[in-house]
């Protein structure tokens, strides 16, 4: 049955505005990175390239990630809502999920940013299909976990 989260309703104004503003920043950042390199700046692809032997493309990716940590760190330290963090399940489950995410994004050629923002934004049909698949898989996984009595953190 579909019910609306009452916590959401209480903070309707700023809650959705922050989500939209954050999305705008992510889109702008992706655009600047694309225009500055000619490389589609999906996070999984950028990160995986850093794991390879250092080459010509390693340094700018490290600079990008240094910026990412600085930007996130500043917001965590200054905006209460940004520091919200409710982990799901234990560290063992997170380790398994981490392997799945790393493996899946490389086999599938992108993640939420690479396929979901950049790929679709460039008009790629592949990225649209990939995004629909990982969204559906995420929804199905959460549904199954809920029915196995692992409710989402509130």
């Amino acid at each position, binding site marked *: 049955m579909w019910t609306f989260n009452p916590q959401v309703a209480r903070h309707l104004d700023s809650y959705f505005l922050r989500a939209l503003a954050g999305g705008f920043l992510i889109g702008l950042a*992706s655009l600047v990175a694309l*225009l500055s390199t000619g490389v589609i700046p999906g996070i999984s692809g950028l990160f995986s390239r850093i794991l390879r032997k250092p080459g010509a493309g390693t340094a700018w990716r490290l600079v990008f*990630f240094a910026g990412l*940590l600085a930007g996130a760190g500043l917001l965590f330290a200054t905006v209460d809502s940004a520091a919200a963090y409710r982990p799901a399940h234990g560290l063992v489950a997170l380790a398994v999920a981490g392997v799945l995410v790393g493996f899946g994004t490389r*086999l599938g050629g992108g993640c939420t940013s690479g396929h979901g923002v950049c790929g679709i934004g460039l008009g790629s049909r592949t990225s649209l299909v990939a995004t629909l698949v990982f969204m559906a898989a995420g929804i199905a996984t959460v549904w199954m976990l*809920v029915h196995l009595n692992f409710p989402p953190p509130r």
Partner: protein
Amino acid sequence: MSTRWINLFAAGFLFGAGLALSGMTDPGRVIGFLDVTGKWDPSLAFVMGGALTTFALGNYLWRRRNGARGWFGDTLPSADTTSPIDFRTLLGSLVFGVGWGISGFCPGPALANLAALRAGALVFVPAMAIGMLLARVLFQADQDVGVN
């Protein structure tokens, strides 16, 4: 320091700030978004919608003015150079979605949470690196969207 590097630091900074501001760094929020049959939290649709609209519109306007040349003269990728829909893309995205649903982490938010030294991110990110190396060793898979 060249302008390109300043751009890339700024891009990373905005990306990290955007992730934190939007709430995507909270795994509970992401799982609430995927929990469509429970107490659904639709706010992350605004994050993805806002990001996609900004990126697509900016990309369109830039190319209309400058063609397929980037800020520093690089050739910009276009949709027709992106990889075809194949079994790997479908299987990989399926596996990624399962991991995303379990953890509430996709790669960006997991990395951003390293800035707060959260235990979850400190476990998740090395595990993610192992998964990436596995994909490379087992399937020679390390494709990026469109270009390398």
